[in-house]
């Protein structure tokens, strides 16, 4: 069969990075193709080029064999290519029907036919066999429903290629299954589906074939039936992860942060835990498990309903993050661009931002002192930039993240919360971030590492707490933490078959000669017995981990 879309030698440079570096891509009608790669590998960018949202510097795009000269979102749509983005793009105050027909509503002489709108929308939803009320406002829908509406919107035209960008990242298990059914149905109708993901589990469930990307290049394409997890990972990361996480064992010091029965505003479960000097305390869990809310509450960004927090033995009740920082508690946020950097300010100004008063007297900045601090920090973190006066927005993702880390190191906090510190940065920068986490622990700081990336949280932490639905449901010492048990706690359900895939993936990432990787003797013999994960989790009352006195 001839490909419906073929892209060749696509190159695209962004400030500081070569996002696409000669990527090739082909897909046939009805094929379900996974586009796999680490964050920043160029998956989304390549598909945005196809959908007309980005313009390549070089390269050729053919649709049905015809060269497309200048792709725009509009003519991509006319050619039957639609992309559903990670961030939903529905108009929140329009109804489902209006959203589906948005752009080209049925109309005569410019007057919209509202009956036509409803008919066409109903038809599109019916094709997908999804039940979403036509007159509901988009903002009242769940994320899964919004996604269905987005897909219906795409299907409402003459669709040839549907691109889904990380569609399951915010879906529940059931919703994910429904989405998969839908994808298969679209495929049966001859629509090619590109499925962007870094979740290996899903790829084997739903995709026919997989293309691996790394550093802006397409590395290889396989039939899913003819490949395996190890091979894909090897192609994805290009090196063994255990080499990147040279976890050092540092003697655990005294308790610095003691959280007792903390109830975050808007939640109703109390949470208790302690962090020690020299310790990396991991927080594992799925997206939406309440980890970020808990951390933001600790630094005073979200109010607390009840409970106490002690920092260095003294009660801490910050009204805003500034109060927490003055006491030596910092929070590196989970979204670098939205709340980590100020892109328009320089590396120096960003690094000095959390310790303004340290570099000032009577409110007047000591410019030289600040500059020296910034230069030292930038050198220590090996931030690649020509000078600390460079604007942070012009750096690559990895360097931006190092600037944010630098901000907290410069602030000299004793307890540092890192929320998804390696999200969206390249493999090399990840390794450096892990090294910094080690450095911080060695200096006697307490590091709280929140990560949804299982290999990372298992590989880096001295102790792992697992959160689900706002409460801490599991606690493991480094030696006892296995991917099975953590996944079991995080999901609260046994999914033996998929477990094998996920944990097999994680274990293969962590496997390697490096000493100190958390592979106990009981390591991953995944059991096929439903309901009994390989490492049984001791029943433990919610929110009261074992190190309570």
């Amino acid at each position, binding site marked *: 069969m001839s490909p419906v879309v073929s892209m060749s030698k696509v190159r695209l440079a962004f400030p500081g990075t070569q996002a696409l570096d000669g990527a090739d891509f082909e897909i046939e009608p009805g094929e379900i193709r996974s586009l796999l790669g680490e964050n920043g590998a160029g998956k989304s960018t390549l598909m945005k080029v196809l959908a007309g949202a980005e313009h390549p510097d070089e390269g050729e795009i053919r649709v049905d064999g015809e060269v497309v000269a200048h792709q725009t979102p509009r003519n991509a749509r006319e050619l039957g290519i639609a992309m559903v983005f990670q961030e939903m793009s529905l108009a929140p105050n329009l109804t489902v029907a209006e959203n589906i027909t948005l752009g080209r509503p049925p109309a005569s002489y410019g007057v919209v036919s509202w009956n036509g709108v409803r008919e066409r929308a109903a038809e599109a939803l019916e094709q997908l066999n999804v039940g979403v009320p036509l007159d509901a406002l988009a903002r009242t829908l769940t994320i899964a429903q919004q996604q269905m509406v987005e897909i219906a919107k795409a299907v409402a035209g003459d669709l040839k290629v549907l691109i889904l960008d990380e569609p399951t990242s915010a879906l529940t298990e059931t919703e994910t299954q429904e989405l998969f059914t839908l994808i298969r149905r679209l495929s049966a109708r001859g629509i090619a589906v590109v499925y962007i993901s870094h979740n290996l589990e899903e790829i084997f469930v739903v995709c026919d074939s997989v293309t691996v990307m790394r550093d802006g290049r397409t590395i290889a394409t396989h039939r899913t039936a003819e490949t395996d997890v190890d091979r894909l990972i090897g192609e994805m990361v290009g090196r063994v992860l255990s080499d990147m996480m040279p976890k050092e064992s540092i003697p655990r010091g005294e308790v610095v942060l003691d959280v007792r029965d903390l109830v975050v505003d808007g939640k109703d479960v109390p949470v208790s835990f302690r962090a020690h000097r020299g310790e990396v305390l991991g927080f594992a869990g799925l997206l939406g498990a309440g980890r970020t809310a808990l951390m933001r509450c600790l630094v005073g960004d979200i109010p607390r309903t009840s409970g106490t927090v002690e920092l260095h033995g003294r009660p801490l009740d910050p009204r805003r993050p*500034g109060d927490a920082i003055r006491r030596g508690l910092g929070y590196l946020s989970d979204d670098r661009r939205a709340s980590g950097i*100020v892109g328009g*300010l320089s590396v120096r100004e960003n690094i000095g931002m959390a310790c303004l008063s340290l570099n000032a007297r009577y409110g007047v900045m000591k410019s030289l002192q600040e500059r020296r601090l910034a230069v030292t920090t930038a050198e220590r973190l090996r931030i690649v930039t020509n000078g600390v006066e460079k604007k942070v927005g*012009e750096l690559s993702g990895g360097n931006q993240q190092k600037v944010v880390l630098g901000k907290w190191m410069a602030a000299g906090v004793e307890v540092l919360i890192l929320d998804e510190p390696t999200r969206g940065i390249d493999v090399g920068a990840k390794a450096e971030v892990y090294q910094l986490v080690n450095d911080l622990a060695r200096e006697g700081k307490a590091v709280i590492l929140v990560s949804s990336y299982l290999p990372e949280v298992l590989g880096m932490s001295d102790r792992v707490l697992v959160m689900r639905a706002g409460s801490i449901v599991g606690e493991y010492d480094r030696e006892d933490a296995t991917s099975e048990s953590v996944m079991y706690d995080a999901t609260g359900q046994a999914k033996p078959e998929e477990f094998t895939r996920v944990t097999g993936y994680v274990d293969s990432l962590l496997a390697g000669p490096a000493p100190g990787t958390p592979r106990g003797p009981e390591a991953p013999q995944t059991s096929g017995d439903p309901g009994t994960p390989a490492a049984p989790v001791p029943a433990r009352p919610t929110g009261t981990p074992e190190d309570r006195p």
Partner: protein
Amino acid sequence: MKTTDEAPRLAGGSPGVPAPSPGARWRALVAPLGQQLAPFTIVFVICVVLWILTPHFLTTSNILGNLVQMSSLAIIAVGATMVIVAAGIDLSVSTVVGLAGVVSTVSIVEYGTGVPLGLLAGVAAGGLVGLVNGLLVSKLGLPAFITTLGTLSVCGGAALLITDGKAVYGLPDGFKWLGNGTVLGIPVPIVLMLVVAFAGHFLLSRTTLGRAAYAIGGNPETARLSGINVAAILIALYVISGLLAGLAGILEASRVVSGQPTAGTNYNLNAIAAAVIGGASLFGGEGRIVGAVVGAMILQLIGNGSNLLNISTFWQSVIVGVVVILAVLYDQIRHRRARKAT
């Protein structure tokens, strides 16, 4: 993300990025400089044109007259810039000018407070309006545009209510000094303008308050999580804007030796225009005091030039409007380009 020019596309540094061409590197170096110097260049060009076309332009009295006339606008533009840098906007300044003038003249004439205290009362009234603006915007989270549009109307009404719509006369001679006196031969308004400009520049570029303003304007979330007390900083900036509008108000009142409730009608648009012409971005995070003063100078020269060349005042208004739109357009294009580059 905010970037000032096309430089981001040319940024090198990380491995695997093609080295920029020599021409590109040259542009990356020169573009930011050119952008900072652009307002000065415009002033220079206007001056040369006026000098060639009119015999009266390059006379001491005309130059001093221009500087005196622009002083109130420049003082207000300094405050406007500070608010704009933090991604806020203060539309109330024009009626604050009238209100401050009325408050000070009424205090002196009807309550006998004496000149210094009366002048202070006028400035304080401006600061009070700024405080209200700041509290509404930061504590209640109201949009700055609507909030200050509201206080604009309130202050305009208040000024008229206080005087029953009439101008306030009968001021003592001492009241004239601020607007008409001299210090070491230099007119007081010019001295005040320079003092305010230097203080504003110092505040914005050398203090933690200024740094916090840029951080908030660039990314309020980051600023807050970095420990900056966003509400307190915003309140301080609006208070400064109000105080400076109050200062301009008493300056205006002193110049005409009367309290005019409708003084300062045009200052709103012009102050924001001056800030934007001077390179402040309405998206926040960018702007310099020097730019605002030069922006005020450009607007003043457009007015003065039109007078000298016998262009009708109706056309002046058109020209100012077009210049403002061009300046904002320039700002938009820069940001669109910067955003595209990310």
